[in-house]
């Protein structure tokens, strides 16, 4: 047992608890709701590049770089009031002394004297982050290199179809139209690949303004209304109460809502309903999209936000690229929000986006849209 472990009575066999925590490869900190470290392992001290004794006499917020410390403090406040919920956690990734650390905090839902504790896991993800950055750079280069010949290809096809080289016959037109459609599909795929690569590493450039959530939700709905109506699907929007503005890139969030509604339409039976709900819930604005489709199996729910993951046996004729939800998740997370999916009790599934409501001090005086 190392000196870095200090343990109160946690109600389970102390030696087992200590062995598990001490031998874990990730840093583990157990704190009270005020952030005071009650227990930590060596890996936590190493990750934070400080001594075990410093860790054990500090509050977790003071061990982290300033902005992230403040964010984790706010997360502690929020999580300590959260009811028992597997999805109640806070995750943040930051740099410290040249290392990239992922810091995940969960409340521990117990009763008695152990109630109100938080467990924070610190994982060194430097190698993964560097690999992801290299992949993003590679994707950007490839996307650019492909875009140039595609521009020439698409341009030439468009011009020939517009009779720039003289009149063309029906069969040539029909074949060139296939080339044109495939070209357009390749371009969309490139756009998506670039988006997902940039968003996953947090390098997507967001143009943040104070925006109305209703605005981008309604635009997304209008974009897809004709598609819904063509299959007899009713696309409904319900806004509950007053919705505060958020600080966001509205084009990107519109893209997210379009992705989710378009997914819902894809899995909806004809003449069913897709409902978009907008409401405030404590410190977030929630936008949820519910469909009356078959729902999503648990194994698929766990993977659905991974890139290139495609739901099997959809019976749909749509050809998805398995990127829309990965892009959506990355965009929402870069806004400090989160996206979740659950099955509805009756049938169908609900995707929910949560966006943080900014405090007064976070609202710029200008840029209001």
């Amino acid at each position, binding site marked *: 047992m190392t000196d870095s472990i200090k343990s109160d009575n946690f109600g389970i066999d102390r030696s087992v608890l200590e062995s598990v925590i001490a031998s874990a490869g990730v840093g583990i900190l157990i704190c009270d709701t005020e952030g005071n470290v009650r227990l930590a392992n060596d890996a936590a001290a190493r990750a934070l590049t400080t001594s075990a004794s410093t860790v054990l006499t500090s509050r977790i917020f003071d061990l982290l770089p300033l902005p992230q410390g403040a964010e984790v403090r706010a997360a502690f406040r929020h999580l300590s009031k959260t009811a028992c919920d597997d999805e109640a956690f806070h995750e943040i990734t930051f740099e410290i002394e040249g290392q990239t650390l992922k810091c995940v905090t969960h409340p521990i839902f117990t009763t008695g004297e152990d109630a109100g504790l938080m467990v924070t896991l610190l994982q060194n993800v430097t190698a993964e982050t560097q690999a992801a950055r290299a992949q993003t750079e590679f994707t950007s280069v490839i*996307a650019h290199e492909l875009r140039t010949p*595609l*521009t020439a290809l698409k*341009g030439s096809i*468009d*011009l020939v179809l*517009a009779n*720039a080289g003289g009149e063309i016959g029906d069969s040539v037109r029909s074949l060139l139209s296939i080339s044109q459609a495939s070209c357009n599909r390749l371009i969309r795929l490139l756009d998506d690949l*670039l988006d997902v690569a940039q968003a996953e590493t947090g390098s997507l450039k967001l143009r943040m303004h104070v925006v109305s959530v209703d605005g981008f939700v309604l635009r997304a709905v209008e974009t897809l209304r004709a598609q819904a109506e063509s299959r007899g699907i009713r696309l409904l929007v319900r806004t509950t109460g007053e919705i505060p503005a958020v600080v966001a890139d509205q084009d990107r969030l519109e893209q997210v809502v379009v992705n989710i509604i378009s997914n819902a339409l894809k899995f909806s039976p004809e003449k069913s309903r897709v409902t978009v709900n907008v409401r405030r819930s404590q410190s977030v604005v929630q936008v949820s999209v519910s469909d009356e489709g078959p729902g999503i199996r648990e194994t698929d729910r766990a993977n659905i936000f991974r890139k290139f993951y495609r739901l099997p046996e959809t019976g749909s004729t749509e050809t998805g690229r398995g990127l829309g939800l990965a892009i959506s998740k990355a965009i929402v997370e870069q806004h400090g929000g989160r996206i979740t999916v659950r099955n509805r009790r009756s049938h169908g599934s609900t995707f929910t986006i949560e966006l943080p409501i900014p405090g007064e001090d976070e609202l710029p005086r200008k840029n209001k849209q």
Partner: protein
Amino acid sequence: MPAMPRKILIIEDEPDILTVVTVALEMHGSFTTTTARTGAEGIMLARREHPDAILLDVMLPGMDGYEVCRKIRSEPYLAEIPVIFLSAQADYDEAREAYERAKCFVLRKPFDPLKLASNITAILESEGVR
């Protein structure tokens, strides 16, 4: 009497894209084109031809599009010519910011060749070029 065709200088190192842009503009009937494959050649042609607008690729070999634009803006005889960047998406945000800084325009690759002429006409009209 039809208006004089507008003279467009296209600076683009990819010959295929040069061809597409040239055909797209000339089939429209209201443009004539001059082409350059490098920034240096483009600046020289701009001085000689004094075009109504310059279509400028961002990623040129050697002197890139931003540098070409900076040089054009620094020469009084050329400074007022509208510059329209042709940007591939990987550098689109950068191009958009450059547009805001240098008061240029951006057309995103792949552009629709059938709308290229009307896009350029709209830009020229917004700049008061007749």
